[in-house]
């Protein structure tokens, strides 16, 4: 399925973005040129400098995001959570059950009885 998605999803992405598909294509082409350029060329130096700058910026940003995401996940999983709706989706126990499930084998006389 992953191979299938890798093969076909870019067409779907292009269908969504239309002419703005040049944004991911441009970024990818730039990366490709930099990655495959000889290490003495101007393009390699320019690309690697920009990537070093970007990665420094992104690392700083990513660390902040990581802290925020971790704290959000901890909040979601904590017992005194603020996002009750999400939490209830994660921990469904079907507390309203008042009859046995159909999958449970029961004696015929007790079938349909409310406990």
């Amino acid at each position: 399925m992953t191979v299938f998605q890798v093969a076909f999803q870019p067409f779907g992405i292009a269908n969504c973005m239309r002419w703005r598909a040049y944004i991911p294509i441009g970024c990818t082409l730039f990366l490709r040129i930099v990655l495959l350029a000889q290490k003495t060329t101007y393009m390699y130096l320019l690309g690697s400098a920009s990537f070093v700058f970007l990665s420094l910026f992104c690392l700083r940003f990513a660390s902040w995001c990581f802290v925020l995401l971790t704290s959000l996940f901890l909040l979601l999983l904590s017992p005194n959570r603020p996002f009750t709706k999400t939490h209830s989706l994660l921990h469904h126990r079907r507390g309203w059950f008042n009859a046995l499930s159909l999958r449970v084998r029961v004696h015929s006389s007790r079938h349909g009885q409310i406990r």
Partner: protein
Amino acid sequence: MLLVCAFAYILLDTDKYGKIRSSFDKRPWRNMKSLFQRTEEEEVFVNFNAMKCPFTNNPVRGTCPICCSLTHKDGYYHGDPHVLHEFSSQIVEHEMAKEASAMDHKPVLGRIQLDTLIAYRANYLFATLSPSCKGCYYKTWCWNVGYRMTWQSAILGFNCMMCTYLFGEDIQIFYADLRAILFCMSMFFSVSTLYMLLALICTSVVFIYEHPHFMDLDAIPKFIDLKNNERVRSWVYWFADESARFGVNPTKSYWTVFYSKKEKEEQRRRR
């Protein structure tokens, strides 16, 4: 980029920012009752000539198969080419289909509606959707098809990035090493995930903002001040789908090679 997307996914699940998403749930643009609802009178007579399309304010011409709203042809999404749409398309409205199959007061109508809802499909690879009204189109597009496609892209981008650590530079494919190819693929999927997610959020915001007579304006977060802040407004409108504006037809255009002879004839008739 993927971290930003993950952050946005979590925010969209909260009560505060999730309103952008949940304001579409009840299909507030409806101008007709759903077929599932029990009505006292057997027949509902409506003066169609007096009714206006909620998306264009023009006289109504047809009915949405999903929400039964009456719309003008410019307030209707006319679908995508069959060749793209039929390839691995999936049912979208499972819950409504279940409701239709359980409709006991009008079983024949329920059966017809069930068939219609089963025929309403989405393609999560090529980003196509079956015909419906503009509201149902943006509801499904922004918060089902497009949203799931961003998830898929995020997973693919992450997988490709992880694989760069697995494969060395010594594996050559075509003209480049596998590691470089995977790195480029990761870049493509990550950038497109971020862009698509921004585009979906902005499209929803613009749709809500442009249709204030039925959409809830409180669903737009306060910091997105479209009324007073010109810079925010221009950015949001740049990212959003141009057809989300009031009165614009949302149907996408394709190269003619994608359309069959029958479809081309249908398009000509519609014009």
